[in-house]
């Protein structure tokens, strides 16, 4: 069950470049598959599954942002806005043209990728904080535009009602149905991102992150690859936006504001920048933490204050605890949860005979 190279001999380069080179990892992945596909849906009810669904959607978005920020080192504060572009593009297609989900989801992704590429153009000239500011501007501009153009937003409330997706004639109404629906996209997103990173395109991204001058000198057209990174990342964001819209049943720009962009940045930083499993850990952590903190306060808060003050303080107390936990984690493990996972893995690599 442990991660161990010892005794595993590869006889081809194909085996050496496999996503999961060790038999133990494959067993672990299969086990995780059983847990996520069979055990979780059996254990949780509708509410539990709805939280799992939120996590799945966050994973798709976080993987996308990780490609841009973690692997290519381009900051983006516009991830929420790219999600809203996908969401409204899909909602309009579904509502006005009666498109099925398998058109709406890629279409939302493509639309977001298009806008994301436009927003990425300044990255050819500027880096770091300056790029963060231009993407922040994009976030606000996109928010404003969607809110103020009725042709996109569908009128006064900037809200479009989205019918649930229909798969092979079955309308997905229950959370566990949505769960399996989302899981398909999560798996595609994860495998696709891992493939990108281990091949020519991903190596070029990492090269730009590590040494942009050297990247150029070995023939990488930096401008083109930066835009690729923006396009891929916002495609993921767009798809996550569409999935979220299906999940909520409405497209609403308030679901995709600046705080969402920051939440996603928090996910990939806490999870571990530029690591394959980091976004998954980060998405779970950042989605679950506020929910658990509120649960905790609701359960135990009564011992410290009376219930009327508790009800008033829970929202702000939740934010404070959430924030301090993030700070605590970053101080203890600056490289994120993925690093923690690797430490555990490496400990058992030679266990029980470490020397």
């Amino acid at each position, binding site marked *: 069950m442990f991660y161990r190279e010892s005794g595993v001999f590869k006889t081809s*380069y*194909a085996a*050496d*470049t496999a996503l999961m080179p060790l038999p133990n990892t494959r067993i672990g992945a299969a086990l995780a598959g059983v847990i996520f596909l069979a055990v979780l849906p059996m254990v949780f009810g509708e509410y539990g599954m709805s939280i799992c669904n939120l996590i799945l959607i966050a994973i798709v978005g976080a993987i996308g942002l990780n490609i841009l920020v973690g692997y290519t080192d381009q900051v983006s504060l516009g991830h929420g806005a790219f999600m809203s572009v996908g969401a409204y593009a899909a909602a309009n297609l579904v509502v006005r043209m009666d498109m099925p989900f398998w058109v709406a989801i890629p279409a939302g992704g493509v639309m977001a990728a298009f806008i994301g590429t436009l927003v990425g153009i300044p990255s050819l000239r500027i880096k770091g904080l300056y790029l963060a500011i231009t993407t922040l501007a994009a976030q606000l501009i996109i928010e404003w535009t969607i809110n103020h153009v009725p042709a996109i937003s569908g009128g006064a409330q900037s809200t479009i009602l989205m019918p649930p997706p229909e798969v092979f004639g079955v309308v997905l109404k229950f959370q566990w149905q949505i769960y399996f629906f989302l899981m398909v996209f999560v798996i595609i997103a994860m495998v*696709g991102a891992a*493939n*990108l990173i*281990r*091949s*020519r*395109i*991903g*190596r*070029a991204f*990492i*090269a730009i*992150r*590590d*040494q942009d*001058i*050297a*990247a*150029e*000198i*070995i*023939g*990488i*057209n*930096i401008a083109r690859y930066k835009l*690729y990174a923006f*396009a*891929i990342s916002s495609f993921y964001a767009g798809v996550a936006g569409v999935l979220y819209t299906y999940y909520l049943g409405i497209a609403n720009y308030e679901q995709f504001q600046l705080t969402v962009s920051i939440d996603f940045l928090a996910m990939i930083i806490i999870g571990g920048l*530029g690591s394959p499993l980091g976004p998954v850990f980060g998405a779970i952590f950042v989605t679950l933490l506020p929910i658990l903190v509120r649960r905790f306060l609701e359960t135990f808060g009564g011992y410290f204050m009376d219930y009327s003050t508790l009800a008033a303080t829970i929202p702000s107390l939740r934010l404070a605890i959430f924030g301090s936990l993030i700070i605590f984690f970053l101080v203890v493990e600056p490289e994120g949860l993925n690093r923690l996972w690797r430490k555990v893995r490496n400990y058992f690599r030679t266990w029980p005979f470490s020397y």
Partner: protein
Amino acid sequence: MGDHHVSMPADILPHLTVDAVEKRFGGVVAVDNISLAIRRGEIRSIIGPNGAGKTSLLNTISGFYRPEKGSIRFEGHDITHARPSEIAERGIARTFQNIALFAGMTVLDNLMLGRHVHMRAGVLASFVYWGMAQREELAHRIRVEEILDFLELQDIRKQFTSALPYGMRKRVELGRALALEPKLMLLDEPMGGMNQGEKEDMARFVQDVNQKFGTTIVLIEHDMAVVMDISDSVTVLDRGRKIAEGTPDEVQRNPAVIEAYLGAGHQAGAAA
């Protein structure tokens, strides 16, 4: 040294022509009206005191600096205003004085990046990684493994370059440049900061590359013993200008060179 190329027919045209190139930074003329004709298959060393403009000249050739005047031609193509990535695609690779490896990647991935210009897989093919992208990846992996064998780097192929000792990193950088299968290699002080043993290894690799693959090599180096030993010809720069050029013997006897290195009044031959 270097007689292997004399009979080659392509020798008639220079492989790389630098014609009256000038590069200024404000009032400073870093490269002042320099012309070079590098023959195909030769090892050309560029020497000169600190600040002579050697690295600036290399940066101009590899496209980082846009020269104010003059032109650069490679294999008959004008590359004066080409982007660095285009110049790499044409077959010019280079290494850096202060090592520019990708620290967050393994030796293997660094060399695979050298294959970038020879690979075609786009975003979609890489995303799917089935069929074409995988076949291409494995085919190029074989080429990279050949280079790892050639430079004796097999045992560290899965190590991160940030964890390697200095001399090894220089060798990996040479490997990355070599993975590009360049026709011309620009090496900026490949032996700088090395001990004698490492220098000898590196000198041997440079000569091997030159002889086995016929790669033209332009080399900046401060170690005169190495320069005189492996170069076919030597160009001497001082304060942005070319002050001498010729075989190692000719250059060593040139009074202008001796003056630039040691100041006026020294005896001929002392520069070596």
